[in-house]
């Protein structure tokens, strides 16, 4: 599960709503009608200018429920990429000696996990 530090910014919600709406071939008028808001307000919402109640936000989620898995998968992948970049940035800040230590530690972790895996396979056989 993602932690709060990696939560996606809300402006992406508006963008995501627009792309989901387009994926489902819904016009702004159609979706606005289903949510119960004005078309102009939906347009402002997609641009991040219109603030909605929790109620309306959840109504939108209900409408897109079929696509919600995509909603999450894509963003989970983005979060994972963010964490890797973050790690790389931190790593680059280290001194050459510290970088070597990190590399040794990673090697050690990889070897121990390999060992555990091999033992598990042996047991299963």
């Amino acid at each position: 599960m993602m932690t709060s530090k990696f939560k996606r910014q809300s402006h992406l919600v508006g963008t995501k709503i627009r792309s989901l709406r387009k994926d489902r071939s819904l016009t702004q008028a159609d979706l606005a009608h289903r949510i119960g808001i004005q078309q102009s307000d939906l347009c402002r919402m997609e641009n991040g200018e219109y603030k909605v109640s929790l109620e309306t936000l959840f109504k939108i989620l209900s409408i897109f429920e079929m696509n919600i898995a995509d909603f999450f998968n894509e963003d989970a992948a983005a979060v994972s990429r963010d964490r890797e970049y973050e790690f790389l940035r931190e790593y680059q800040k280290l001194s050459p000696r510290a970088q070597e230590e990190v590399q040794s530690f990673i090697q050690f972790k990889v070897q121990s996990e390999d060992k555990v895996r091999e033992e598990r396979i042996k047991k299963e056989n």
Partner: protein
Amino acid sequence: MAADLKATYAELTAEGTLQVQRGDFRQAAEQFELALKIAREVDDQHLVHRAACNLSTARLSLGQIQEAEKGLREILLKSPDSDIIFIASSNLASSLRRQGRLQKALLYAKRALRACESIDNYAWKATCHNLIANIYMNMSYLDDAMAEYRFALSISQKGSLGTSYPVDYIKENLGYCCLLKKRYRQGIAIILEALQISLANGNTRCLVECYQDLCFAYMQLKEFKRADEYGEKALAIASDKDYKDILKNCYYLLGEVNLLMDNEERSDLYFDKLQEFYPHLPVLKQFLRTFDVSNIINLKNPF
């Protein structure tokens, strides 16, 4: 006999009005229902209309939107009385606002404003501008909303309303509008003023909104401990008074605040509580854990 009944009617109406101002809407509705019965018994159209309007006010505050709207349009057609036209129009505006029909709501709010021009009641004039401001805030026209709130406050000063109703609400709303414009410190200062007034006036509804909005403000300022404290206060009152809209907002806010404090267990607890209101939406919790929606949410949008 009729005089006795009219005296009882006046007592019930006064008591109900006080209860509305204190946020005890259920009790207020009971008083107004009794008053309506009496008005029908004495067959006084003016009293019937007035009691029906008052009952509508209490029902609106209880979230019984359809019930609250019943009969108001008919009253508007029949009554020549500015007082009645004011209450019926502003209640219709409030009802439509809660349904998200904001353009229509604005029309009725402006009608209410016209009606109260001829009435020497500064509290009503201020209430009316507060309502128009609320509609603008729901439309996310924040500058227009702030201008209306400030105008409502200036009317309150002109009418020497001091800290009486509806000054507490106007300040609270103005403070929240500042928060939406990301002027957090300014918003907090105004909401704290509203909080003091609400405490003095015994206005629980306004008080709970102050606590809720302070929770939001401190969350945005990343002062999570304070946010948590205010959120808990709001939650306690909302549970006690059965303010469902505030209850949902509090579960969201406390879930979010605790997530940001890395108190995942408590965060889960609150998001689970919120989830109970939306059993058809099993992804809700995951969604809130994944996305920061605090900047696209208006806690005062009732629809």
